């Protein structure tokens, strides 16, 4: 439905905001572009919209090339971070504006507006001016304005970035429900990983203008493609321990300066610099240990209360280490088992994942 091929954007000042991004979206799919500010996600979105002109590559919508056609000819809806409602028009006029521009008659305009107003529950706001509304309500109207013309594609640029936390998940739910109901393909930009996990059919993680990884929320969380993704996703992120691979024939070890952890057999050359990654919730605190199992021993420095669980801050020979636990541990030594199937191994130099 939407297809980007090697899309690049270099700004006149020489900044390479986007460097060769290729991706596709299926009809009805919700893609989330996720990354820190400055990673090129917004620029990519704006190029899809036609608000920014790519320096290379192409954009296709429904198989039709639109790379350099103006935004007004692409039939898309765009929700801006700062709403961009017309301040001199009432909410009603704001919703009616896109319909008037496509030459719809009054009766059909009314019908379309009624539909959106019911969906979003904004009937009581129609006569207000945007400046009289709260941020949440303004964004609801902006969403309505994008929906009212039933465009073939929704583009959303951090629409909830300026909304208070409580209201945020509310709006997120409203939006997702409507999007699923209307089955409109959507590209959603955010830097909030929680939002990305909650909304996405597929997450596309960007960094420095390129796509680092794409996949379902499950895939990118459990199988990060590199150290960056491993650290970026999750709160807290993955435990990352630097060390060396020791292949001793029948047994393999992950060795740090002060410790050696026995590892399952994997095809990695001896003496390579390796970073071991494991999520805090995937390790378990165990007292009796099988000799062969991979494990770490550490001392509890502090327990951080997180409501339904604790995050234990451990000092291990391999460095600081976080463990998720159901109980608080105040002090003392403890053993942490590293489950083989949950371990991620990264090449320290390139950052890419090995296994």
């Amino acid at each position: 439905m939407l297809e980007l091929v090697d899309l690049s954007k270099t700004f006149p000042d020489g900044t390479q905001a986007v460097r060769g991004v290729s991706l596709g979206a299926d009809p009805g799919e919700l893609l989330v572009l996720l990354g820190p500010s400055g990673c090129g996600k917004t620029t990519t979105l704006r190029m899809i919209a036609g608000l920014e002109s790519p320096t290379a590559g192409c954009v296709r919508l429904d198989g039709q090339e639109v790379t350099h056609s103006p935004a007004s000819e692409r039939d898309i809806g765009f929700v801006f971070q700062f709403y961009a409602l017309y301040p001199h028009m009432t909410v009603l006029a704001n919703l009616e504006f896109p319909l008037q521009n496509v030459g719809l008659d009054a009766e059909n305009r009314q019908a379309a507006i009624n539909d959106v107003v019911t969906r979003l529950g904004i009937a009581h706001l129609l006569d207000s001016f945007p400046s009289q509304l709260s941020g949440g309500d303004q964004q609801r109207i902006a969403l309505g304005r994008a929906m009212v013309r039933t465009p073939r594609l929704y583009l959303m640029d951090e629409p909830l970035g300026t909304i208070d936390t409580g209201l945020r998940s509310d709006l997120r739910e409203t939006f997702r429900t409507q999007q699923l109901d209307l089955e409109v393909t959507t590209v959603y930009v955010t830097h909030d990983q929680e939002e990305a996990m909650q909304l996405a059919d597929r997450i596309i993680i960007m960094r420095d203008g390129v796509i680092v990884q794409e996949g379902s929320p499950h895939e990118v969380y459990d199988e990060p493609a590199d150290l960056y993704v491993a650290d970026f996703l999750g709160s807290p992120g993955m435990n990352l321990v630097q060390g060396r691979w020791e292949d001793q024939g029948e047994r393999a070890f992950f060795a740090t300066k002060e410790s050696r952890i026995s590892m399952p057999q994997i095809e990695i050359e001896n003496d390579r610099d390796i970073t071991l990654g494991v999520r805090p919730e995937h390790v378990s605190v165990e007292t009796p240990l099988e000799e062969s199992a991979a494990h770490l021993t550490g001392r509890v420095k502090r327990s951080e209360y997180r409501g339904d669980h604790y995050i234990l801050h451990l000092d291990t020979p391999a460095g600081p280490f976080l463990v998720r636990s159901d109980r608080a541990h105040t002090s003392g030594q403890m053993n942490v088992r590293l489950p083989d199937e949950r371990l991620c191994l990264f090449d320290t130099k390139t950052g890419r994942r090995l296994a």
Partner: protein
Amino acid sequence: MTAYGEGAIIRAARNDVLGRDGKYGWPQSDCWNSTLIPHENDHLKYAFVGPALLLLIALNIFPLFYSLFLSFTNAELSGGAATFVGTANYSTVFSTPRFATAMRTTATFVCLAVAIEVSLGYALALCFRAPFRGKSVMLAVLLVPMMLSPAVVGLYWNVILNGNYGILNQILGALGAGQPQWLTDPDLKLYSLLLIDVWMWTPFAMLISLAGLNAIPGHLYEAAQIDRASRWTVFRRITLPLSFPLVALAALFRTTDALKLFDQVMAVTGPNDEATQTLSALLYQVIFRNYKMGQGSAYAMVVLVIVIALSTIFVRHIQTFQTRHGRAA
């Protein structure tokens, strides 16, 4: 200043910034007068505003009342005893055909000048929005005329508009057009003054319009593009209404200023030229050429009423138009 003092000032300044932008810090707006040093204001504040206001009263309020008083007397410029003549001066004012003529001349001038300057200035501002090479130099050159003395500009334009050797007629001659007598033809004189005024003040309207246009957030244009608005729709429904308040302000400033037109009249045609006698020129003629101070004061009072009424009506009009426009759109 002590080290402690500087620290405190910086802290206080930070607090102020937080108090304004965030929701933290103590409220800044209303605390000043009451909380910090109670009652210190009472004697001190008048020391700050007093001298200026006294001078304003002496040079503005008092003369107005004095003028009102004089308008009921037959005072003459040469001095001597003035006697009370009741409303005789006002009857003279309203029965003199010259007054009606001056009113018409002024009204014509104001309407044309404001209409031309504001629309031309707005059009220029639209062209000035996009950045281009040499923009700031161009802007600076355009702004020079309005900073110059109208009287001196008026005198100098005599060289340009002179019927025989003026550059304008030389150019027209070279183009094979006629040789209009800009300064002596009674049908043209007022338009010569208008030409000078447009030259001087169009950049003023442009400057204000430009500020109005630049204040429109760029993302509204992006939204309009997404909403599939045509270029004309964007101009009519976004650009025009959002820049209107400042354009109206430009019109207001120009109206009140054009109403006073006097300097150029004096420098181009003199005060007693029937075709260009504005209200101010008429006032000058009555007071300083006919020496009738009492009658001049009556004229002045009438002019004052007109000026005040017009500016009030204008301000009201702007306010209502804005609200109505906001709802209608």
